[in-house]
């Protein structure tokens, strides 16, 4: 038994996952190595498929919002926002500018917390635990701000269909401005560390380099693409919500290596701080919510939002009832996963955790459905499939 595990004499495979200290969520990577050099890489996803898309179909429009928010624990607001924007578009509801601005405010605070989290995780993968601990300590500032603003640390539930729940008060404005000042100072420090620490640069400069051509070919999104010089940012290309009134600058870097990804993400933090301050100073007056019909008229739409990791994509179809007929979610990690396999070959085994972390993977979010290639060509309907699974487990 033990002889057969990954050994067919010619190939020496290092299995990373589904359970491995480098992975905080289940995913599986097989790295074929020749000594320390990686000669081949494969990825297998789908360990954390939770059937959320299907579950949404049996819930009404409002319930689905809270379920979809739980797709991701880090960019939860983004999922709720993408869905809400899509449903509002379908229903033809116009949300007030104030509510839109608050949505963007929370989205940017969330981006700050997500990028700080990534900074720590990526540093940990390289074995730089001091940076990990420090960045996570400072991240608590923005977590506290989100908690005092929305009432929750993780799944904020700031969105409702037709608006937002929480309002910006003078107290919270002061707290956020103070927190952002502190974080900006810290971010300056981290930018200095990741661009000047010689030992750390040995692990990031020129490692996992992805050229602009490769990035475009692989269709990567978000900061991973922007670090390779691809100007791809939904906030700029197709402004949604309050990004129309509060435009952002795209941060790009040309190098395409891990250092560039560090630089892009930290510089995006500064852009977020600027945007947060601007929104707080020019917050439009108005109602927080508008009335939303219980049933959404039939039709279909797509909705795109720039999550901290890249483009979150929703396809929403309504048949005119009070339940969604179909919601299809595609998260940025899925788009970026190909770049891991493409850039891994030729690097050292020691670089693998960092190259993997470089795309800021979020496995549970991207595990939507598993395609089973059935050569017999059998096609099941949903009911048949349900029957089949009940029989399958009864037989065991």
């Amino acid at each position, binding site marked *: 038994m033990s002889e057969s595990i990954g050994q067919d004499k010619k190939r020496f495979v290092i299995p990373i996952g589904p359970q491995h*200290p480098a992975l905080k969520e289940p995913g599986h990577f097989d790295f074929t190595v020749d000594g320390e050099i990686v000669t081949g890489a494969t990825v297998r996803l789908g360990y954390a498929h939770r059937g959320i898309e299907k579950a949404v179909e049996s819930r009404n429009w409002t319930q689905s919002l809270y379920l979809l928010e739980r797709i991701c624990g880090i960019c939860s607001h983004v999922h709720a926002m993408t869905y809400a924007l899509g449903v509002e578009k379908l229903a033809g509801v116009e949300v007030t500018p104030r509510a839109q601005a608050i949505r963007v405010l929370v989205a940017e605070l969330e981006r700050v917390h997500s990028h700080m989290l990534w900074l720590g995780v990526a540093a*940990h993968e390289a074995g*730089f635990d001091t940076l990990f601990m420090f960045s996570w300590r400072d991240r608590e500032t923005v977590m506290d701000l989100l908690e005092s603003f929305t009432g929750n640390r993780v799944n904020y539930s700031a969105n409702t269909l037709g608006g937002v729940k929480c309002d910006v008060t003078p107290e919270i404005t002061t707290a956020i401005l103070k927190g952002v000042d502190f974080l900006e100072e810290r971010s300056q420090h981290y930018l200095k560390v990741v661009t000047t620490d010689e*030992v750390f640069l*040995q*692990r990031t400069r020129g490692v996992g380099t992805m050229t602009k051509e490769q990035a475009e070919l692989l269709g990567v999104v978000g900061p991973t693409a922007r670090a390779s010089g691809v100007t791809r940012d939904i906030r700029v290309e197709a402004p949604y919500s309050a990004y129309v009134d509060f435009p952002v600058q795209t941060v790009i870097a040309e190098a395409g290596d891990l250092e560039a990804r560090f630089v892009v993400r930290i510089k995006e933090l500064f852009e977020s701080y600027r945007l947060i301050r601007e929104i707080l100073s020019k917050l439009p007056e108005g109602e927080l919510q508008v009335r939303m019909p219980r049933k959404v008229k039939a039709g279909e739409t797509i909705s795109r939002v720039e999550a901290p990791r890249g483009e979150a994509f929703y396809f929403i179809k309504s048949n005119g009832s009070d339940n969604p007929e179909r919601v299809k979610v595609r998260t940025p990690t899925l788009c970026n996963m190909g770049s891991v396999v493409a850039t891994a070959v030729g690097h050292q085994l*020691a*670089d693998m955790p960092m190259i993997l972390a470089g795309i800021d993977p979020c496995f549970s979010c991207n595990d939507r459905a598993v395609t089973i290639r059935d050569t017999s060509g059998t096609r099941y309907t949903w009911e048949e499939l349900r029957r089949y699974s009940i029989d399958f487990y009864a037989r065991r």
Partner: protein
Amino acid sequence: MNILRTLLVLLIFPGGLFVLLNGMIYEWADRKLVARLQNRIGPRWFQPLADMVKLLAKEEIVPASGNGRLFIWLPIVALAGVMTAVLYLPIGGLQPAFSFPGDLIVTVYMLSMLTLCTGIAGANTNDHFSLVGATRTLTQLFSYEAPFLLAMLGPAVAAGSWQINDIMAYASNHPIILLQPVGFVIALIGLMGKLEMRPFDAPEAETEIVAGALTEYSGRGLALFYIGRYAELVAGLTLMAAFYLGGIHSPIDYVLKTLLLLLALVGVQTLMTRLRIDQVVGLWWRYGALLVLAQWFVTIVLKGIVV
């Protein structure tokens, strides 16, 4: 009487129990200080002891692949190696238990037993993490061992003796850290390599190869390897303090000087990123070995001038 003394020396002081407890305290100090510098709380004072008690009480699972007898004996040999080295060192600020001309070489080689056993232990299984870990452990051993040995022999050359006691007597009258600063730095960094401390923890990089060579170890075997490492920390610090910090003359002297060195190790651990194994080899052979050879040259020339 003689047997009683030997037993005392082997089991209570300086070998055995004393080094064990001392090692656990230093291990705790190391972890606690790193934690505080990283803005964490860190472990409680009895944490290493609690870990050992727990591990020793646990079932030891011997993998089906590899040689089972070797699997069980390797941690014992590793610990025995370190414990033997301790007998020739001025642990606790007192005279070494045993001393003979050339004991320095024996000590330094006994200190390498732990790494060697770790490497063989990793190679003795079919686990891919262990195999990669073993390769890295042994690669690292071959990269730091020669410069470390040369750095340790630097004071010996200056003193003109291979006996630890003589070298320490010489070091008490001569500021070796000023005469051989390069040797001091190389020896300190070599000690970090021996103990697989960051930035030289590529052999056990948990984000790549889980626990490296010791991935398959659990329970007693793992505990013995850990105890060996704790004892090696004490032995290494003592040797460094005796040679480079002007010798060890009293228990207080011992505590102060070894803790000072530990503080230096903590600082480096906190500031550094883990190096890749190719970078480690490059660092040692491109800079470490050459610098320590240059140091030797200077020492010999100086000695020639003085005499």
